[in-house]
């Protein structure tokens, strides 16, 4: 190794596929990306498009009906981008791809970021009963405990039905084979 450790230079590529989004402030995000050589080959000379989506605020439903906020055709040789004028306190994700006809062929998605709120909580949110907790130990108001309900209608079903329904757990294969080794 003869590189001068006081005059280091940084690599121009790592040969990785990455599309990373960072929060700048409640109204802006920054994205940088690198496309692996294998990825670049598949793209040839296509015009790349970067799309920013606002996601459903419900965790676990990110993929459902994202709202397209902005779509930009990337100038050649860009490897980062800023989106401004965004709505605060929302979750965003970007996708990169190319378009053909009406279709968008997305080949990479970014991480999801949540930009912070730009203002205090609204009155409705404040109306909630404040919760308190000591610093040393975590506590939280215990959910009100309902007593076990016992007045249900008896349901007719056989053990076999039960066994049949079990295969649904975890959604995997071994459905029709009760005892396996």
């Amino acid at each position: 190794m003869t590189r001068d450790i006081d005059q280091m230079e940084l690599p121009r590529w790592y040969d990785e596929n990455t599309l990373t989004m960072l929060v700048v402030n409640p109204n802006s995000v920054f994205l940088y990306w690198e496309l692996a050589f294998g990825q670049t080959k598949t793209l040839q000379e296509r015009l790349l498009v970067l799309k920013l989506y606002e996601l459903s605020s419900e965790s676990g439903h990110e993929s459902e009906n994202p709202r397209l906020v902005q779509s930009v055709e990337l100038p050649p040789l860009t490897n980062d981008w800023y989106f401004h004028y965004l709505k605060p306190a929302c979750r965003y994700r970007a996708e990169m791809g190319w378009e053909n006809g009406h279709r968008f062929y997305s080949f990479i998605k970014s991480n999801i970021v949540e930009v912070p709120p730009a203002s205090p909580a609204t009155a409705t949110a404040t109306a909630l009963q404040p919760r308190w907790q000591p610093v040393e130990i975590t506590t939280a108001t215990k959910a009100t405990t309902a007593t076990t309900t016992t007045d249900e209608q008896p349901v007719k079903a056989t053990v076999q039905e039960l066994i049949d329904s079990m295969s649904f757990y975890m959604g995997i294969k071994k459905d029709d084979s009760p005892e396996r080794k």
Partner: protein
Amino acid sequence: MPAGYLALVLHGHLPYVYHPEQSEALEERWLYEALTECYLPLIDVFQALARDRINYRITLSLSPTLITMLTNELLQQRYMEHLNKLLALAGLEEKRLGGDANYGHLPNFYMQKITRARNLYLECGHNPLLPLKQLQRQGYLEIITTCATHGFLPLIRSREGWRGQVKPALDLYTRHFGHPPAGIWLPECGFAPGVDEILAEYGIKYFFVDQHGITNSRPAPYYGIYAPVCTRPGVAVFGRDPESSRQVWDRHAGYPGDPLYREFYRDIGYDLNLDYVGHYLPDGHIRIDTGFKYHRISGPDRQKEPYLPEHALERAVRDAKDFHHRRLEQAQKAGRSMDRIPMITAPYDAELFGHWWYEGPAWLEFLCRETAAGNSLRMVTPGGYLHEYPQSQTVEIPMSSWGAGGYNQYWLNPSTDWIYWHLHRAEDRMSELADLHQVTEDPDKRCLNQAARELLLAQSSDWPFIMHSGTTVDYAVKRFKNHAGRFNMLAEMLEKNEVDVETLTEIETRSPFLPDIDYQVFRSDTAAAKPKQQPVYRVLILSWEYPPKTVGGLARHVHDLSVALAEAGSQVHVITCPVAKQGVYTLDKGVHVHRIHPNRLTADNFMDWVEQLNNGMLDLSIKMMEVYDKFDLIHAHDWLVGTAAVTISHRCKLPLVATIHATEHGRNRGLHTDLQRHIHQLEGELARQADLVIGCSRYMGHEIATLFDQPADKIRVIPNGVDPDNITTGLGTDSVERQKRKVIVFLGRLVSEKGVHVLISALPAIMEAVGPVKLQVAGKGPYQQELEKLAHSIGVSEQVEFLGFVDDPGRNKLLHQATVAVFPSIYEPFGIVALEAMAAGVPVVVSDTGGLSDVIEHGVDGYLSPPGDIHMLAHYVSEVISNTELARHFVHRARRNIMVKFSWKQIAAATREVYSEAIKKGSLFSE
């Protein structure tokens, strides 16, 4: 009773500017100037107040880089040389200005100041930490620390990265002060949600954010910034008071801008001839501050007038009184609507006092005296306030910082944004290296530790700060590149297994920072990175099936989890159904397995059978508690064991954690029969009664919350795990060659929600794109005929092979030969098969739905295709088949993600976290 509390917080930090390779480094002067003008004068003030028995409280944060430099021998020696030079210059100046009517008093003034600093420095044996420690012991100071290299946390990507910034800092503090700090100063007050969890892990009690970090939190804080709030993991948060800040910070309206105070921007280093002053400047000619400043700020548009120290001091007295008066008024006003004594948090950079605001230390001294003289405003430390008021309101703190604009833009903007790609890449690489090297010896160990140091040094918020502020940019860029570059160099040596000791040693001597650092803090396996001293939990797990009885995947899940928990030191007892040829008790891989006696389960009717099962579990658990002592917690898996779990929990006052693997509603896309409605009800009951509920994906977490109307903060998401060893069983030693022909594989039950019809429909387009392929469908189900018909009707029946049910070795063989595995589900709560394929090294294309969306990072370790979209599925499958280089990337990343996110070790650690949370919750409830 005072009307208010005032918490003054001084944050001392300098970047790591240690250049043993140069005889005179310009940047090391930052440390010398701060010592002469800030740190030593502040210590002088603190000691004087203590001598006079003034009852003051100040919180002082010392950064690990500063602590390291203050205690570095070479720097101590160089500082002494620097002081001697300053004294010589003062002597020279006395001669030069001796008789000057306007400036004659100033050289002697500086001579005294420098002598005072030098005496103090000698008194403490060159180590300013010693008097500070003493002051902390006496109760005047509360000393805390900040992140290892002042890394700006909102722009560090991973939790491992956060841990890397936090833990070594706490260790260094503990090494110097003998105990861990109570609180932490987040660099630049930079907070991002989740940081609090890491702080809680390490026992940190409090941190600070800027005002809007508190006022914009959810829900709105009851006391505003006049009392701390608390985040869910139990860390208190203090908010900066903007008025206190403005009065001290503001360039125009703030105290330091007063015309009587000393002008910072006139220095003899710039003003005098080089022939004269050059000897005291770097390289004899670089114009730089010497600290000899002879003017007062003076009025606008006026000639700078001579500095008059006595007048400036009088002004400092007046300003201290003013500050005191305003804080008191503010506290009185705030207190009117509060049922506790309001607290004002006033944090400042320590280097402001004495350096930029020369009279700052004096002002501070007068403020302490003024406050102690009255009773209405009292000084407090955050620890002291929390001691008086342990209860704080629980809120969620949003991302924020105290930088210009209030968020991340000071460190992330067009002049600095290029650094983050390199930083994040290094962060990820560091974790990967730490994961791969769990046991090491030198020189690898040294190399890993140095890589960790270089990564941390590259992360300093100072570099982007300087780049953006526009002064000494070249230095910041060079430092960043050197640290990031050295990291890359070390990482490469480790990856190639060619550690060059000579280079390593050279790098080590450049940055002998954090001598005790342990790179393992970067491991993604959180159990290893976390503090060791954890109580042993005795856990009772209820599950209707457990190996060797495996009907669905539940048995395997409970088994792998139990074994991993037992391996990590928990005592695990499982109660489950009887199974042929197994007694009522077995000890299996450290797990105590208890089985209900077969003659207790006699019913033919489903509900009766479930009741018998639950009664059996209840009776058995009571017997077990007589024999084995009480448990700390019950963990129930799915509704089948719900009644027993809830009853035991109530009867024995034990906290209850429930994992809901799938819901009846989700499985059936609604509730259509009485049985389904009944099961739904039991699921809801279990979810309601449990202290915490675990779901296997964010999608499932959400489903549980909405179906059973449970608050989101009661639900934890822990993915299912996969054991890579399982994927290789049955393959033998001669590994099967991946076939030359292109094989698409699907594994799963043949029901419409698995979406196999979408895949079959996509075959013609796939073949058009990549040529002949084979689709192997493993699994059975009611939908098979339909699928066969479909294949026939679109002319691909030749290409589709229905293999029926396959066992584990069969599955492994299939995966091993596959070109791509496709899981085109329409509904999928988790999707363990996708993990198994990833573990087997097969590139995957899955539906962008449910749990699958969590498992795959689109374009990084596989593709997510819109559910039901034949065209796009064909596109993605063809891409993976035809582009082997990209497929290899996916496989590499997927393997890594499996190891990081879906290892049982990791899942057991996360589950244990949930246990400890539930136990805390439970213990408070029962008090």
